[in-house]
Structures are given as structure tokens and as C-alpha cells.
């Protein structure tokens, strides 16, 4: 016969074991749990606004045939187009245009003091430079090699047909 005192102690021990086991088995929530929750339900908002311009409309504004570089089409999605810049077969940069309609991407240009080709510009992280055309279209150049510098990015932004893009609506 187990005495009530022992029974109490045993219950406490079992309880703490249960707690330890469940604490170990439950994973820490991911840093992405919240966005997963918000974007995966039946009523989740679309990732790209309905009125966003199709990526195929952006192709004509990308720089082509720049001496010493190959410019290779990479992605063409709803509201987005991207090209690779290769030098001697090696990827050194990416060029992109996207429609910021329905996304918060344009907000970062509001307080920008920098400009490229007359458009508000920002440096983002260590490898990206972007401008905003017509308060709507973001043109971004991203370095994929340390030799492709911030100055190169700014110079490549100017190679886009920015005036043509500004006329797109």
C-alpha cells in the first residue's frame, strides 16, 4: 500500500515529467508562422494585385546587348520580370522591374534623399539599388558578385528605358 505522502510525491513527479516531455516535443514557433497563417487561409489576399501590369510588358524596357555581358531572361511573372547579367558565363548581377501596386514596396522611397536618373532611389541591404518610376514601378539592380559594385548598380539602372517605363500605365 502506498502512503498518501508518497502518492503525492509520485503525482508531482509524474506531472513534472509530463511537463518536461511536452516542453521538449513542442517546437519553438517559426519566425514565419504569422505570415504563413495570414497568407494560407481560404480568404488570404492575392500575392499580386489584380491591376498589376503583366511581367511581359516590362521586357521591352530592359537593357539588351551590353558589350562584355550576356543579358539572359530569367523570370516573367504577374507584375514582375527579371533578367540575369552574366560575364564570361558567371552571374554577376540581376535586373528587375516590378509593379508595386498592392505591396508596401514603394513606401521606402518616400524619405529618400538619393536619386538616379531623376527618380527617387534607395540602397537596400548590401547588394541592391532601386528606383521608383511613376510612383509605381520599381527598377532594381542586385549584385551577385562583389566586383559588381554599388556604382555599377547605379550605372546599370540608367541603361533601362526609364522614359518608356514612365509612359506605361
Amino acid at each position, binding site marked *: 500500500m502506498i502512503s498518501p505522502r508518497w502518492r503525492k510525491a509520485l503525482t508531482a513527479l509524474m506531472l513534472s515529467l509530463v511537463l518536461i516531455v511536452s516542453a521538449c516535443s513542442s517546437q519553438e514557433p517559426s519566425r*514565419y508562422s504569422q505570415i504563413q497563417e495570414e497568407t494560407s487561409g481560404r480568404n488570404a489576399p492575392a500575392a499580386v494585385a489584380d491591376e498589376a501590369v503583366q511581367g511581359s510588358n516590362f521586357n521591352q524596357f530592359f537593357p539588351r546587348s551590353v558589350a562584355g555581358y550576356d543579358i539572359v531572361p530569367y523570370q516573367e511573372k504577374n507584375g*514582375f520580370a*527579371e533578367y540575369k547579367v552574366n560575364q564570361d558565363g558567371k552571374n554577376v548581377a540581376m535586373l528587375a522591374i*516590378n509593379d508595386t501596386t498592392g505591396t508596401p514596396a514603394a513606401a521606402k522611397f518616400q524619405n529618400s534623399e538619393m536619386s538616379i536618373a531623376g527618380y527617387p532611389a534607395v540602397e537596400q541591404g548590401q547588394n541592391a539599388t532601386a528606383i521608383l518610376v511613376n510612383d509605381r514601378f520599381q527598377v532594381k539592380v542586385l549584385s551577385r558578385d562583389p566586383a559588381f559594385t554599388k556604382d555599377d548598380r547605379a550605372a546599370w539602372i540608367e541603361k533601362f528605358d526609364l522614359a518608356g517605363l514612365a509612359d506605361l500605365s
Partner: protein
Amino acid sequence: MSKPIYELVDQLPTGGITVRALKSLDFIVPGQWQNLVGFDNTIRAVTGETDEALIQQIGERAITLFNDKSEGYQRALWLYQTVDSASGMLGTAALAGRIGQDVSFLGILKHLTPKPEKLQSLDLCVKLVVELVAFCQINGIPGDSIGDFLAALGDYAGESLMRMAALTCFDGLIPLGPSFIDQALSVLKQTSPSELEKNQTFIGVNELIPGSNSSGKLKFITESFESTQGWMSSFVSNNGLTRERVLDNLQKFVDVSKDKADYVGAFLDIYVKYYEHTGIQTLARRLIERSVAEI
């Protein structure tokens, strides 16, 4: 609804038969594939960014894009997963319980049956078409012309190039031998739509192959194979690939016997899930490339 994309990338294995078999192909595409796993790791490796707030922002955009079904990423994932499991389904029931374990080739040899050449040829063709369809789901049809599209395909690198190396070696050269391209094409041309309908790999991915019926789909598969056979044959000749060389290298990483090439083909078919593994890596990379540009 599939698992969250970040979990899929976080849970990619760092070892096991699939990873070892792919590593054995490094001699063909040196340094192209490092088995990049982990969602945040992939963001850092692709973008070169280290700021945690920026990584969070890129990750959140990638998850949002993946979760929107109309963007095509989930269909691509489904294709990569299905084409692997459908072709491996031919493995006998006796082996079913051992998938995912570290099995020994000789230990299961008696359960393996080489896949008939016709079936293997069809599998190869269907898998190649799945690559094209998944490519379009992920990337759209980039550029303004067919030439642009072919340039985008020809620029395959990293894990995508590794997947094509694996397709060429594991589904072509090893099971079918050096004339696998001609053989696959001739099998394809003798295949009737009703025969195609009975192919397990085709059944798995049928609904996403362009074409209004089996006959239209067969036509699409044949045309796609014809238009990419040039790429595949130069891939074989430029790299001096022979069945012997591939098996020699495979033997260094996976316990298989070189003198039983047919059986090695069947073994790889069941245990090596290279389409799904590298497919998830491709999806993650392209999603991240788009996200860092869009934010």
C-alpha cells in the same frame, strides 16, 4: 495545402542516398551543387544579405508568393514530388517499407526488377516534359521570343543543372545505355495514346501536361523531347559521359555493383528522389530571387 515552403526547405536532408547519389555527379557539373538546405540559409546564400530584418522581409514575401496558388509555385512543387513518387512506384511492395532507410544494394537485389526498356524510355521522356512544365510554372515564359525562352533554359545552373545531370545519367545512361536518346525517341514515336495512359509516371502528372487529350499530350511530349534532345546529346558528349564512368563515380558514394547496371537503374528509381530534392531547392531559389527584387 502543401507544407509551408520554409518547412520544406528546412527539412531537406543533408545526407542519405539521394544526396550521396547527386554528389556522385559532381564530376560532371563541378561545384554547381552544394546541397543548400534551410530556408534562411538559402536566402543568405542567394542574396548575400545578412541583415536579419531584411532576411525576414524577403522570407515573408517568398512565403506569400508561394502560398498564392495562382502564382504556379505549388503546381511546380506538386510536379516535382509526383514525378519522383510515380516513377518509383514500380518498386515492389516488398521494398515499400524500406524507403527512407539506408538500404544496401546487395541486400535488396533479389527484390529488384529492371524496368523494361520501353517503360524506362517513356519515364525519361515524361520526366523531361515535367521539367519544362515546372520551369514555366515557376518562371513564366521569360522574354519576348522562342530564342529568349531557349536562352533562359540554356542558362540552367546550380541545382537545376544538377537535376538535368541526374535525369541524363540516372534515367537515361545507366538504365538504357549510350544510345538512350535515340532509343527514347523511337519508343515515343511507337507509343500510342492509350499506352501512354497506362504509364505510371504519366498518370501521376497527366493533368498538368499541356494538351486536351492523351493524343495531344503525347504530341507535346514528343515535340518537347525532340527540341531538347540536342541539348542532352551535347551534354553527354561535351562531358565525355559513359555508363561506365557514371557508375564508377556512383560506386564511390553509393553501395551499388557496377556489373548490374539494369538493377542499379531500378534501385535509383526507388530510392533516389532527386527531382523532389533539387526541385524544392530550385523553387526556393527562384522565389527568393523574385522576393528580394520585389520588396
